[in-house]
């Protein structure tokens, strides 16, 4: 179930929006794995809309910042049980020098942000042939 808006997400170099003092901050759950010459980072941002997700790389630090929105059904419906709330997702990662910072790509699907961080040329695995 891909999001309708399929345009590529932007990774910018300007400082990410910091959570406000009054905002509830959530640390998104993250999976990170290496797949060949790419490091893939998957972050759970349920309730965040693609256009509001802020991804920045600044001085080797990758920051994910996005509003966590819970669309409450309105005044008439009182909260009987509350297990989730709105706020802001915020998490930062230090990138190693292995990562090619210029070519990070991002996409969003069903509340999961996927970042593809390619390894820089010098960090790629090279197969060495043994000459007989």
């Amino acid at each position, binding site marked *: 179930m891909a999001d309708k808006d399929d345009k590529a997400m932007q990774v910018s170099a300007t400082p990410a929006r910091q959570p406000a003092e009054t905002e509830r*901050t959530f640390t998104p759950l993250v999976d990170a794995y290496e*797949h060949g010459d790419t490091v893939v980072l998957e972050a*759970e*941002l349920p309730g965040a809309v693609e256009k509001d997700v802020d991804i920045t790389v600044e001085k080797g630090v990758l920051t994910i910042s996005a509003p966590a929105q819970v669309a409450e059904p309105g005044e008439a419906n009182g909260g009987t049980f509350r297990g989730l709330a709105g706020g802001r997702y915020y998490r930062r990662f230090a990138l190693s020098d292995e990562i090619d910072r210029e070519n990070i790509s991002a996409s969003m699907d*069903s*509340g999961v942000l996927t970042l593809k961080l390619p390894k820089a040329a010098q960090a790629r695995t090279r197969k060495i042939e043994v000459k007989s």
Partner: protein
Amino acid sequence: MALFRWPSAFDPFASLRYMEREMDRLLGRGGFGRDVFAGGYPPVNVFTGPDDIVVQAELAGVSRDDLDISITGDTLEIKGKKESGADEDKVTYRMRERGSGQFSRTIVLPETVDADRIEARLEAGVLTIRLPKAEAAKPKQITVG
């Protein structure tokens, strides 16, 4: 996002996690354990109004096809499967917090609902189920004669 993650009954670190969560709460951070499936997953909100009950559940990365929502009387059950995005044999994990596997959560609704008119939508990882109340459960105005 989930307000808390309840530690499971067999978790030897339950009290530690509880403390951690309390510390997080005091420091104003989102209290957040690491066990996605400890206790109640998915986290839910239940809202009750004059005409309907709205249930919200956070299911990031769960596809519509892997969801199984059913209702028996006034018991709503959300079942499903959360799959990890990667082909696990071909990748090397560096961080793993999201968790995967089967889940099920049962919610006993506060009122009787009309099972034929229930609507469920999954958007941006948030499931919203709107359950219209049965006629008998709706509030009625009583006039003093």
